[in-house]
């Protein structure tokens, strides 16, 4: 019994010892996550609108962009930007900035497709009603269609956000010291897998918080669909 208690105490001590490094890694993870989401959610919109544009050069550019970034592995894109930018364009960016740029471009492509599907799912009658009232196409899009699209795209967007939390682990490949890299460091050094368990717990907490936020947002944006007074 005393053995068991002392082993628990000593494992607490070990956790206390590795936790600061893991939390520091978590900071990078959260920063990368937040920056990517903040920039790619708006960036997806012009690409979505472009991909349904009737002006074909814009349509082709946007569709090609979406195809490239959805059609290749995110890890490959990371390597590409990490090695390509310094060589071809002679810009040196630190690995974290490179990671943010790559992630934003990648996730904007996914969001663009989600938005496009959402916009096209709005009943044609909404366009017709707006047109019959003399509303211009641009106004119809921004005042009538997009506000109704938000609610429909929230579930797939939060789904992507949860995927993003886990995708941040990829950037350890170009040397960003995020959560998984910090955990791997501790595991390799101490020959003890506790760090992985803690990392898993931290990822779970992050995704759980996201789930709560998205649930709240969905409720907020469905207020006009509530029935009864």
């Amino acid at each position, binding site marked *: 019994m005393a053995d068991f208690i002392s082993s628990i105490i000593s494992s607490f001590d070990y956790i206390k010892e590795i936790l600061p490094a893991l939390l520091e890694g978590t900071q990078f993870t959260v920063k990368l996550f937040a920056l990517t989401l903040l920039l790619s959610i708006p960036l997806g919109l012009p690409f979505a609108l472009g991909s349904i544009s009737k002006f074909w050069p814009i349509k082709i550019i946007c569709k090609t962009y979406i195809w490239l970034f959805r059609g290749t592995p995110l890890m490959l894109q990371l390597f590409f930007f990490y090695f390509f930018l310094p060589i071809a364009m002679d810009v040196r960016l630190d690995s974290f900035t490179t990671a943010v740029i790559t992630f934003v471009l990648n996730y904007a492509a996914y969001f663009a497709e989600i938005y496009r599907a959402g916009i096209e799912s709005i009943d044609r009658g909404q366009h017709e009603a707006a047109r019959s*009232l003399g509303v211009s196409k641009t106004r119809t899009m921004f005042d009538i269609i997009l506000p109704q699209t938000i609610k429909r795209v929230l579930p797939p967007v939060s789904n992507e956000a949860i995927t993003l939390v886990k995708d941040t682990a990829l950037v350890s490949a170009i040397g960003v010291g995020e959560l998984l890299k910090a955990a791997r460091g501790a595991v390799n050094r101490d020959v003890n897998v506790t760090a992985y368990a803690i990392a898993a717990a931290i990822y779970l907490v992050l995704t759980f918080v996201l789930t709560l936020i998205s649930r709240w947002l969905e409720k907020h944006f469905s207020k*006009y*669909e509530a029935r009864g007074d």
Partner: protein
Amino acid sequence: MGYILQMKNIVKRFGECYALNGVDLYVAKGETVAIIGPSGSGKSTLLRCVNRLEKVTSGEIIINGQTLVYTDKNGHAIYPKDKQVRQICAETGMVFQHFNLFNHMTCLQNICYAPIKVKRENKDKAIERARELLKLVGLPEKENAYPAQLSGGQKQRIAIARGLAMNPSIMLFDEPTSALDPEITGEVLNVMRNLAKSKITMLVVTHEMGFAREVADRVIFMDQGRIAEQGAPEEIFNNPKSERLQNFLKSILKI
């Protein structure tokens, strides 16, 4: 003279199929015209051509003195620029079979949106007018309700108010009661009856023969993309001349 709507030799082709095949229709100010006919006869298409939800293949449409479309020597239908088209079409108010209210806006917002954003009316005035219209359609207590909170009949009455808010020269109704349960069509028809009484020009595509008979000044029977017969309601319903109209009325009365 005094025509609000003039449609001359309207042809609308979908591929090989002629939805409208040479229709002439004139609607005088204050007149209520009902269009009846079997499904696929081109009634709705004709109505949708009036406010350019459909583009005509050839023909001429003049709304309140403004030319929406004419046909050049080569037989091509010529529309003005989109901005002008929108301006002319705003002379018409459209009520759809499926209401098409803006789901994310309250009833009041649905009614005021176009007057404020398209006509650039003063906001307070537009709201005041919207409240009057809500009273007119008998739903003053619903100004802050969302469409999802209304019954079908209430939605359609709000849609009528939305159409009227732009002060159109003519109101277009595309089967306004077809999506409603039979027992609540009455509330919508009542509103339309009152509009007809107050001499608002109306063009109504309908399957409600009772309404056409009682309210319309003139009834138009369409078949296979043409106007097959037209006249005063008594004439059309009591003394149909063409065999097609006789058959149509028989088939409807059987139901």
